Structures are given as C-alpha cells and as structure tokens.
C-alpha cells in the first residue's frame, strides 16, 4: 500500500510540475509581456524599465525557477490590476469555489449513483428509460442555458431562490444544480454499466448461493466493485466542473475563483490568471490522487501494483 501511495504521489508531483511549466509559458503566449504591460504610448526606455522591474530580462529557465520557487511558498506576485498580492485575492475566493464544487459534486453523485443502480437492477424498465432520457437531455443541454432557465423559473417566476450573490446557502442551490447536473449523465451511465457487469459476475452468484439478502448482495458485494471506475470518473468530472464553474459563477455572480478568472481575463491580469490556472490544476491533481487512494482502499488488487 505504501509503495503504491508513494508511486501515485510521485506521478502527481510530476504532473504538477508539467502544469507549472505550461502555466508559466502563458506569459509569453501573447507576445512580449513587457510590451503588453507598458501600453501603447510607452517609450523604448519605459519598456526596458518594466522588463527589468519584472525580471523579464533574465534567461527564461531562471525566470521559471524563481517564479516556481516563490509559487511553492504561496507567493504568486502582485496583481497588475488590483495592486494586491495575487495569493491574498485567490485564497479569499478559493473557499467559495470549493464549496460550490463540493455541493455540485454531492448533488451529482446523490442523483446519478442511485439512478444508475436502479437502472442496472431493472434494465430496459421505465426507471432505466427515464434515467437514460435524463442523461441524454443533460448531455445535450448547454450548462449556461440550463443555468439561465433555472434562474428564470426558480428565481424570477416562482421566486423560490435568490438569483445572484454568494452570501447564504440558498445562493448555492441553483449553481450547484446547474453545475452538478452537467456531470450527472456520465456518472449515471458508468454506474449503470458497472453495476450491470458486476451483477453478472460469478461472485454475485456465490453471494446469492450463500443465501444473502438481495440488499446485502447489491450494496456489499456489487456496488463496491461497480463504483471503482465511477470514483475515477468523478475525479475527472470534478476537474471539468472547476472549469465549468467559470461560466456558472459568472452567471450567478458568485464571488469565487471562476468569477475572478473571468474578471482577470477582462483585465488582462496575467499573474492572476496564471495563479488561478495553477491553483485549479493542483486542486485537480490532488483530487485525482485522492481518487486513486480511495480506489486502492475499495479494490485490494490495485494496492499490489
């Protein structure tokens, strides 16, 4: 188990390093950063000063290493727009996005896993068909449109929930549904497929031959084996949700990282965008690592590798 943990940890760190290289090179994607910062009316001398001030005159590997060294310590530099340390702004907004991510994931899992199990127990039944319809609709519907529809009905026509802001739990209901619904189809279909496969397995017949009650066969013997791929998928989908939260947070004006990312893009605030991408990526890597650990706990065969 320890060897497996260390191996996965090593891979996670390598992925994080790769992401950091990509994130760092973002500065140079849009041309000379000093030129962009200085603006159109700057003189040759101003540009040279800015280049020296931000250290853009050093060799690129040196720039990367010093940037990485500071980033590891939580120093992402200063925002070009807000005149505040990037880290301060980000860690102010991060809890909101995490909260939204987890409530959305919780909503998605609470809806998709039971539906997937039900669909697998009675394949081609009414429940199965209804779940399939839900999945197809979910897959086909753009999340921004679904979010606006929710707003229109729940927020404006029926006035059940507040439509913008992030001050109370009620503000999170609609965004969580809008964001979580997006990942529901994939998780549900994978749960269904996994359960169908597992329910046909020999060890399920053994469990029944022991006289175990159907509920015990289903939840102890089948579900544990069926959710293993679902755990991996949920981690990946969570990554998509972090990306999707940019859209959802903007629509609902939730003061999270996604909203901040959108604002920073508008303001061409490079250090801020860089830091957001890096933080979200690391977040995603940590989640994938946790999913691997959870799977190793669920399936003893994984631990051996």
């Amino acid at each position, binding site marked *: 188990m320890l060897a497996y943990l260390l191996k996965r940890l090593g891979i996670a760190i390598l992925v994080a390093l790769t992401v950091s290289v990509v994130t760092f090179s973002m500065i140079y994607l849009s041309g000379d950063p000093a030129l962009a910062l200085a603006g159109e009316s700057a003189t040759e001398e101003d540009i040279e000063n800015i280049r020296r001030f931000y250290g853009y005159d050093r060799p690129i590997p040196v720039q990367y290493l010093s940037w990485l060294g500071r980033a590891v310590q939580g120093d992402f530099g200063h925002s070009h727009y807000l005149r505040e340390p990037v880290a301060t702004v980000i860690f102010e907004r991060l809890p909101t996005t995490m909260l939204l991510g987890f409530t959305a994931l919780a909503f998605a899992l609470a809806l998709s896993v039971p539906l997937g199990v039900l669909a697998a127990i009675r394949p081609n039944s009414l429940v199965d068909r209804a779940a399939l319809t839900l999945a197809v609709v979910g897959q086909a519907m753009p999340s921004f449109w679904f979010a606006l529809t929710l707003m229109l009905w729940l927020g404006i026509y029926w006035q059940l929930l507040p439509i913008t802001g992030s001050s109370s739990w009620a503000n999170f209901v609609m965004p969580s549904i809008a964001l979580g619904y997006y990942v529901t189809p994939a998780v549900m279909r994978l749960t269904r497929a996994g359960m169908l496969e597992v329910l046909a*397995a020999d*060890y399920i017949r*053994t469990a029944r031959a022991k006289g*175990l009650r159907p509920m015990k066969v289903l939840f102890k*013997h089948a579900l544990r084996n069926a959710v293993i791929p679902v755990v991996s998928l949920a981690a990946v989908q969570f990554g998509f949700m972090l990306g999707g939260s940019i859209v959802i947070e903007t629509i609902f004006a939730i003061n999270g990282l996604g909203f901040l990312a959108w604002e920073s893009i508008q303001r061409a605030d490079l250090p801020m965008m860089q830091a957001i991408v890096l933080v979200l990526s690391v977040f995603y890597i940590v989640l994938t690592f946790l999913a691997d650990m959870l799977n190793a706990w*669920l399936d003893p*065969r994984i631990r051996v590798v």
Partner: protein
Amino acid sequence: MAAAPILEVESLNVAIPVPAGTLHPVQEVGFRVTRGHTLAIVGESGCGKSLTSLALMNLLPPRAARTAGRLALDGQDLLGLSEREMADIRGNRMSMIFQEPMTSLNPAYTVGDQLVEAERRHRRTSVTAARDRAVWLLEKVGMTGAGERLRQYPHQLSGGLRQRVMIAMALMCDPDLIIADEPTTALDVTIQAQILHLLADLQREFETGLILITHDLGVVARLCDRVAVMYAGQIVEEGTARQIFRTPAHPYTRGLLDCIPIPGKTRRGAHLGTIPGIVPSLVGSMPGCHFADRCPHASGACRSGPIAFRDGAGPGHRYRCVLSLPSGPARPDPAP
C-alpha cells in the same frame, strides 16, 4: 441403502424464452440423493447439468422458468417457498461449489470476511466463533497457515486454494446437501485429483449428500455411489456406478464409455470410439428419443413419442430407450 433421501427431485423442467421459441434445456429430470452418498450427474457440455443444479438452488437466470413435480429437501417441499424462505435454505442446508474458483470469490473482501459472512447469515454466532470455525474448516480443506489466510484477498491465492476456500464456505453451516458444479474443470490436472478426493473425504466426514456434476467419467467411477447420465436435457440412464460402468444399457452411455481408453485393456493403436453427429437443438418440443439422430440402433419407434424408462440390470438401474437390455459380457471398470 434404505436411508431416507435427503433430496428428491421429480419432473424438473427449465424453460427459457429465446428469439426462436422456447428453449427446454432441462426436461423431466428426476433423481434422489441419500444422506452421506454421492450422485454424479454426467453429460457433455450443454446437456443441462449445470442448469439442473442452479434450478435446485433456485438460482436460475431471471428469464428462466422452473417447474417441477416435486422438489424436497429432507422431506420439506422447496417448490412452494418464497424467494425469502429459499434464501434461508441456500448456504445453510444446501450449498453450492462453482466451476470457476478464479471468479467466484469477491475480489474486494478478504477470505475471512466471506467465510464468516456465510455462517453469520444463518446462525446467531459471534464473529469470533465464526472465525474459529472458518480457521478449522480451512485446515480441514488442507490449507496451511489458516489463521493468516483469513486476512488474505482472493487474488493472493491460486485457483486450487480458492476452490478449497469455496469448499470451506460451502461447509460453514454444515449443510445437508452440497452441489458441486464441475468443481475441478478450471483447475490444473495435478490439483483436480486432490480437490475431488478432498470433496469425497469431507462428504463422508460431514455425512452430507453430494451432487457432483462432471463430464469426467473417470472421476465418477472412483468417487460416486450413483450416476445419472444426461443427454440433451434428459436423464437417459441412472444406476449405481457399478451398473453404469459394467452393464451400461443406453446407447449413449455405451458410446460415452467407448470413448475412454482403459489402462491395460485398450490395445495400443486401437481406435477409440466417437459418437457421430451433433447434439440436437432444444428449442421447441421434440417428441421421441433425443439421441435418435446419433444412435446406431435408431428405428421408427424411437421417434414416435416420449420414451419411458425401462428397468436395467439390477435394482435402481433404469434407462430411457425402446431397446431391451443388451446382452453380452459385463465391461471392465474404467478406473482401477
């Protein structure tokens, strides 16, 4: 031999709807198993022997329908039981060992967990007591270091060891009857004999009835008291192992026995027997003898209607054929 039967089966049928009609993989099967004795059900792949065993446990696939004239365990009727009542009997008074030890244990749980669960489902025992019984049974099935085995996962065990675990699991509740469905087919040849002898020894020690489903006639000759030969969904001949091997009456049984070389009797270079033709489709109804198309003695009488059992060479020997008992010298036993 007048012991009360532990299992009585009469007119057992299984029907499965398929696109082309209805498949009848098990037709009018009947037999008895006495406590402490072994019945072998022998036949080639697809003859319905596995479905027969699943039908006894009521573990058939959902679409398969089971009907029977009588199905009783130790005098108790099993046909009228609800699924809930049947589950109380499964793994408790009647347990099963499957063909595939590699996939029959749940990969996510330890051996100990799966053994303990089998007993605690049916008995009000403590976990400690159930673990003690599991260790005792693992030693009985010949596993060394039984205490540590409980903490191992199935993937850490070889096929032979997993099948020993399955046997121990079947014995957890001290059942009246064990059904072993080709328990050695998936194992190494060297392990097969060990597992079969283990089963035979345990069956004597625990005085359970045993139904051994197999296609290996050599196994049957050595280990079983009675033999039922199945062909295309029906029992075609039934008798004691000695009757079946020395005075086989049904042409199919004789054909099967001709396929086996006998050490010291079959000449080197001599042709072994084969049975020409293929197994008939069991979709739809089939009047007459199922073996008629492959039988060297077939006549019009074989295809006109259902074939009744005739009495064979001694008490308890019967066969499903229109021909009277073949004459001639008794055959040698295939197993030394």
